[in-house]
């Protein structure tokens, strides 16, 4: 019963936060809403006994990704009012698609026949059951192939990102360290004698 109350409260917060991400005018607010939704879903996962995933979600997404995101949002001068006109232009069509998707979701949720007979209801584990340990055991034995593949995808992502962003174009302002080190005082500082000003 208590778990159910927790679930619905958190689910409500999650949905409100998700709506907030989309509707917030200020991109910083949107990013903060996104953090809220991540934290809430992490707690939902805790209710499902997925402790490790919950922690990773908070650490990776909230701790690293979203901080980076906020950085970028604050550094870029995002035009807050931009795109309003397009919103009204595309609103009817978007609304239609949203309505269809809601109907589909309703269909899926209420169609109880979709209740999947193959899956039995999971039994809660004991208190000393270690989610992390189990996950590690499976990850490095049964799913080691997929795990290694994921590692290669990350390597590919690094290569691709560097290929696409690092380039030497004319007029690029970069530091020339040797020049900076070799500089003498006379090159930069000029001592100017001035008369003391009287008001």
């Amino acid at each position: 019963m208590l778990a159910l109350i927790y679930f619905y409260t958190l689910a409500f917060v999650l949905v409100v936060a998700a709506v907030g991400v989309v509707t917030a005018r200020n991109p910083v607010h949107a990013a903060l809403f996104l953090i809220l939704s991540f934290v809430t879903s992490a707690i939902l996962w805790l209710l499902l006994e997925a402790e490790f995933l919950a922690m990773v979600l908070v650490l990776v997404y909230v701790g690293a990704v979203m901080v980076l995101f906020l950085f970028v949002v604050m550094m870029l001068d995002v035009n807050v009012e931009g795109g309003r006109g397009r919103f009204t232009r595309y609103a009817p069509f978007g609304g239609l698609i949203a309505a269809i998707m809601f109907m589909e979701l309703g269909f899926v949720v209420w169609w109880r026949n979709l209740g999947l007979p193959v899956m039995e209801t999971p039994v809660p584990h004991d208190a000393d059951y270690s989610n992390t340990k189990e996950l590690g055991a499976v990850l490095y034995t049964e799913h080691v192939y997929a795990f290694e593949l994921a590692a290669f995808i990350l390597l590919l992502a690094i290569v691709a990102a560097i290929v696409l962003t690092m380039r030497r174009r004319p007029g690029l302002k970069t530091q020339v360290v040797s020049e900076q080190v070799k500089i003498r005082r006379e090159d930069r500082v000029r001592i100017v004698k001035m008369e003391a000003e009287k008001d």
Partner: protein
Amino acid sequence: MAEIFLACGLCVVLVVDLFVSDRNRDLTFSLALIVLIGTAWISWTTGHAGQVLTFGGSFVSDPLAQLLKIFSIAAVFVSFLYSRDYLKQRNIFKGEYYVLGLFALLGIMVMISAYSMMTMYLGLEMMSLALYAMIAFDRESPVSGEAAMKYFILGAIASGTLLYGISFIYGVTGSLQIGEISAALTAGAMNETSLLIGLAFVLVGIAFKFGAVPFHMWLPDVYHGAPTSVTLFVGTAPKLAAIALAVRILVEALGSVGHLWEPMLLVLAVLSLAVGNIVAIAQTNIKRMLAYSTIGHVGFILLGFVAGSHAGVEAALFYTIVYILMAAGAFGMVILMSSNGHDADRLDDFRGLGRRSPWFAAMMLLLMVSMIGVPPLAGFYAKWWVLTALVNSGHVWPAVVAVLFSVIGAFYYLRVIRLMYFDDAEGEAGAPVAGGWLMRTVLSANALGVLALGILPGGLLEMCARALSG
């Protein structure tokens, strides 16, 4: 295992490339080719008749995987050979191009050998990520950037739908492994509604990867916008991965519910035939024209699956291999035409080619005629076997539609031939095609390969049959 060798090899290429100056990029290039040859050799020698599963049933090694792997390695090899001069002239002859290409090949090979939905998805992502970066490789060109962006966004959506569909199938059958899914489906009564939802989403993902109508929007833009050597890459090897995806998911995993996916596939196939062949007529850019012709050919490949019989899948496999051979030649021709600096991708650039360089005009003639499907060439047998399989399984009207649209499609292939032989070149475009010996040899071999395969199609067909009987 060939994948391990490829993965190590590409890391070596990546590191060696760091220490090579821009003038000696040929070293990276040849190293990449050596890695490809090594990978092909390992794939060739480790082949065997039966089906072997490893890694908890997520990796499969069977004759189908071997065949597709060797052909995709060959396709990548050929596209690397074509790309060298093209990239050099545009100052984008960088080692990373080949590293990304090898990454894409790794993804393709993972997909081909995937026996679980999870590895399949990972391979797909690896391939797609590498392709996005390759399309945007020429950063000076805004068209390339736009093409990459479109492909990236649409590709991400397609991956999402594929995953969503996979999650439904997992929910119904309780497994991600192809063999277990198939066993679960044959064993008991399933909830058809949720299976159908999952199936529809998975099919959207597959159709997107193939470029079937109505999920073809990315194809013309990507083919047009990407540097031609990348277009050649995108148009060849990934199609083999797509057919592997289709065979594994539709035939091996969901084969017992064929009555559910065949109608959907039929609609996709007929629409692709119609849109591909009709819209291609209106194109003035040869890359766009070939993109639409791809869509038309994809319609044929999908029809092979619609037939639902063993022979149909075999014909689809044969068609795909023949198609990538023809596409490699056709895009290679565009690259060859572009070898004096500017991109000769308009149809008008082919004017008077018959007088300027008769040999290459003849090669292009072979390729175009093969794409139409005229008897002594490979394209004919590909179409013939798909149609035979269709008629034998009782799908007569789709076969009639397919023939009808190929006749319509013949128009724009013939127009290329007319431009080459009966029109005169305008202005200064009258020079014969320039191009290194490498390009010339590869292209000639490619086009003559189409002819040879047309005269002696038995060997490849037998290989396809053996691969699928495994």
